[in-house]
């Protein structure tokens, strides 16, 4: 369970989040949708204790992330990149992360197998392709077998087979009762897997509900999204 309550954030002189509130519930895939720069990543980074908000609370299972004991056993997070230093092998990276949360070394090889990187365990992270980096990032997130998954643009850089794999993996995770929160700017992708959808634009939540509610009278989630975020065709690009 993820509860974000009236989170506001200012960077320099610009306010980038305005009273952002939403929930992500167990057993459901919650899609966090918004154009680039809308505040998705900032919200997730505040949720994970990486950035600080000026006001509001962001809780995971009722506690702020920094108060979680051995947090990887509760939350798995996938942000930009793999998080592995370029000079480290995939296995060495996973082993130090495991050690920091009191998890056994054997978990490293287990999660490498889950994400299909067993054959690359001894390869340095700096030599990974974008898709492999995402998989290594996901493997890191899965080390503690967490009940909550927080993923920032998880399908970025994946090939079609990887995208399908990720989709099935996230659906299965939710079916097993996990809370899955993922951000994306890809409407079509999100419509395929999300049970609930939150739309953010210019730092404000514009709508929050299940997929059918958010789509409403629009033909697709994409139409609804474009109407809600008032992006004109041919506008920003």
């Amino acid at each position, binding site marked *: 369970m993820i509860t974000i309550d009236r989170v506001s954030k200012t*960077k320099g002189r610009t306010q980038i989040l305005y009273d952002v509130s939403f929930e992500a519930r167990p057993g459901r895939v919650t899609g966090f949708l918004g154009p680039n720069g809308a505040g998705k990543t900032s919200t997730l*980074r505040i949720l*994970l*204790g*990486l*950035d*600080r908000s000026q006001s509001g609370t962001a809780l995971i299972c009722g506690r702020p*992330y*920094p108060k*979680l004991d051995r*947090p*990887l056993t509760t*939350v798995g*997070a996938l*942000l*930009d*990149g*793999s*998080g*592995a*230093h*370029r*000079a*480290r092998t995939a296995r*060495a*990276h996973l*082993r*130090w*992360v495991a*050690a*920091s*949360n*009191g998890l056994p070394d054997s978990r490293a090889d287990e999660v490498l197998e889950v994400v299909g990187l067993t054959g690359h365990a001894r390869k340095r*992270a*700096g030599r*990974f392709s*974008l898709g492999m*980096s995402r998989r290594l990032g996901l493997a*890191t997130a899965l080390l503690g077998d967490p009940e909550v998954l927080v993923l920032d643009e998880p399908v970025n*850089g994946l090939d079609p087979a990887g995208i399908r794999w990720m989709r099935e993996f996230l659906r299965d995770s939710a079916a097993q009762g996990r809370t899955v929160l993922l951000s994306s700017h890809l409407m079509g992708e999100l419509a395929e897997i999300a049970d609930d959808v939150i739309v953010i634009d210019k730092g404000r939540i514009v709508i929050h509900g299940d997929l059918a509610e958010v789509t409403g009278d629009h033909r697709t989630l994409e139409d609804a999204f474009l109407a809600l975020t008032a992006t004109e065709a041919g506008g920003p690009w």
Partner: protein
Amino acid sequence: MVSLVRAELRKLLGLPTAWVGLVLGTLLAPVVVLLNAPYTRRAIAAGTLTDTSDLGLRDLGIGLIGPMVLGVIVVSSEYTSTGKDAPGARQLTATLTAVPDRLRLLAAKTTALVLVVAAQASVTAVVTLTLTQVLHGEHVPAPALTRVAAAVLYWTLTALLAYAIALITRNGIVPLTLLIINSSVVSVSYLLTKVTDLAAYLPDIVGARMFIRGADFPVAIAPVTAGLVMTAWVVALLAVGAVLFQRRDV
């Protein structure tokens, strides 16, 4: 906390650059003693080198590049971009999601660094001083154990100094360039001692007074005072680094 320190030790020792620091730092001083041996022998025989009590201990200085590299990369490796696909992505994200309590994380990092550098310094000091004894034994008194311990402490504090500066600058190039140039090419700190006696209290200068006895020094500072002054520098810079690290967005 033990598992955190173990994780930080693994992280540090898993970096190729750390091994450059370990190998260079450990080998440089003994190699210099070996290379200088003929010159030192001649100087002693000619009577131009009369005060031999610092011999060996003084040679340890060149190896300080090791603790400097180690201290800096403990921090800078967290801030290095993890790849061209995601230029903003850094290991620090993985580190802080695994260990979100930043002060505990710093405590673990500091402990890991101290363990590695103290071990390196002990090995280097023993090897360098033994080598000095073997080569020039009849002319050089065996140094007191407290002086050897002080040299190990100096190395450890130097690593912590580099580490604290890197915490403040969040990058490896600036502190490493400054420290290495200052300790090898042009010692700005040493030049400053020619301008003002106060410069004798700069951390790198004062720290060496813990175990070097040589007389070419403007102010008399007792070894214990020297140790306390250098420790105060390190504690102050670490405190600044820790506050910044605690407050900054990643």
